[in-house]
């Protein structure tokens, strides 16, 4: 048990922020992203204590987080904060976004099919093709093809929204992670 608790703690320290950022892209509200982190690491703890597979825990974490984010989004779509008559409560705050990039990126992302959204969000967290395949439940050999299409669709959606990414003009090192 001590070993699993230490492993869980290490994984939280190593991937807690990444899971939060990943969730922040997939869900709309900060508190939902926090809930995704909560749920993911609670499940990790149970997984470790139950002696679950530990060969690809990073991929496992993102898989659980992806499912938790999807569930939260579905729930958000059906359930909203209840405002009694004359109550002036405001909806939960969205994520901070000083330059609007998150908002525009998420708006464009929202126009894509669910699998595209998931693949791009996983890729943005630097997951390998093997980890992406595991988290998205697809064949590893299909990841490149599906990612290429998703990226093209995302770029088209950004442009359709009138957005332009200065970074597109920037020189980058191919393959650099």
């Amino acid at each position, binding site marked *: 048990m001590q070993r699993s608790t230490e492993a869980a703690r290490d994984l939280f320290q190593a991937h807690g922020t990444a899971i939060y950022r990943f969730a922040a*892209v997939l869900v709309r509200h900060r508190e939902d992203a926090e809930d995704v982190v*909560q749920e993911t690491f609670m499940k990790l703890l149970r997984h470790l*204590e139950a002696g679950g597979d530990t060969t690809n825990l990073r991929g496992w974490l993102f898989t659980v987080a992806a499912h938790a984010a999807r569930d939260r989004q579905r729930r958000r779509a059906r359930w*909203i904060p209840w*405002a009694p008559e004359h109550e002036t409560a405001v909806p939960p705050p969205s994520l901070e976004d000083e330059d609007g*990039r998150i908002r525009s990126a998420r708006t464009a992302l929202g126009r894509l099919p669910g699998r595209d959204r998931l693949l791009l969000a996983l890729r943005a967290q630097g997951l*390998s093709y093997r980890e992406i395949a595991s988290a998205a439940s697809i064949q590893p050999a299909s990841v490149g093809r599906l990612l290429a299409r998703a990226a093209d669709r995302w*770029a088209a959606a950004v442009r359709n929204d009138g957005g332009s990414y200065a970074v597109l003009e920037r020189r980058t*090192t191919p393959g650099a992670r």
Partner: protein
Amino acid sequence: MQCLNDERLQALADGEGSHEDRAHAASCAACGARLRARAALMTSIEEALNPPVELPADFRLKAEATGEQEGRAVAAGEQEGRAVATGETGNGATRLRAFPGESRNFRLQAEGSRRWIYTAAAIAASLVAVLFVVPAVRKGDTTVSASEILAKSVSQLSAVKRGIEVMEYELVLGGVPKEMIPDQVDGTYRVWQAIDHDVPGRFRFASFTADGRMVSSISEDPIAKRRVAAFSSEGQAYRFDVTLPSGARNMSLPEIERLHMEASIAIMQASGNQLVETIDGPNGRLYRIEVPRVSSPGSNPVWDLTEARVLIDSRDYSVVEFAVQGSLLKSPYSLSYKQIRHVVGASLSPDAFAVPSQPGEIVVTGEGSAVPSHDIVVLALRALAQAKRAR
């Protein structure tokens, strides 16, 4: 070697490609340029979808919600290199902890004593309370589903009202209902209607074009026992003024509209796929509910909505906007309603329920029946025959 396809190029951009492909991209100007563009795109995605947000400093795993004091004790215990529970040591329950001074951190703590079973039970009870009971209680009085909102709206629509209700709204018709009124090409109307809820069957409905020209005006008054329908066709104004047969109680045009709205919202409510969001309107919060596609039951539905959305005022659940598109009896139709003014208990002058005369109108009078449209046809044909005999 052939030039790289998108999939292999993507793999290279993602650092997953083969040495051969990388060598080709280095030697082929076209593939090299494509690779640079693809890599730039992926960098954009990475930057855009990896927002520089940090877990809040006060982020705490929920299982910890009751254990701040214990957490400090555990933290102190860990500094000494051993597992410590509050006042107890040993083996037992496991839990996640986060500490105020150690952001994004948690402790997994084994603890126990001869009384470990009581500690474990207490922790389990706390967890159950925090994870299940508290959210359940909170949800009960803090959330409402799209289905509930729609149900309240239907109740509001069908609620018995008193006094005079006046509504002004924009109505946009498409498909079959639009074709039924060929004079109005764009299918857009501004409607004014008054319903006297204290006198069943008393109403007046008037539709106008965007530039204020009257398209039609219909009224029924059981007290005066008159039913009047005025409209224009090919530039000629007509007025059908008939007696209202005693005991006649037809569904009025406003009632038909309301029932259509009620039925559409009920279908939306039955859909398991509503999308709801709150938006701020000029007079407060509004619920916007949308369903992608709903059909009436059966494999060959007589009523099918390909799109339906409604905007509901959170203060009284009245419908502020309503739009549906679909087919009825296999005929495509669409209807959009946007409320401009709604007053219940309005004070109107007595002649507000009377249809005003139009210049140059042809007046046809007679006895009415239970079927208003039938009256118009019969009376028009009768008037035509009389005119022919007069010649």
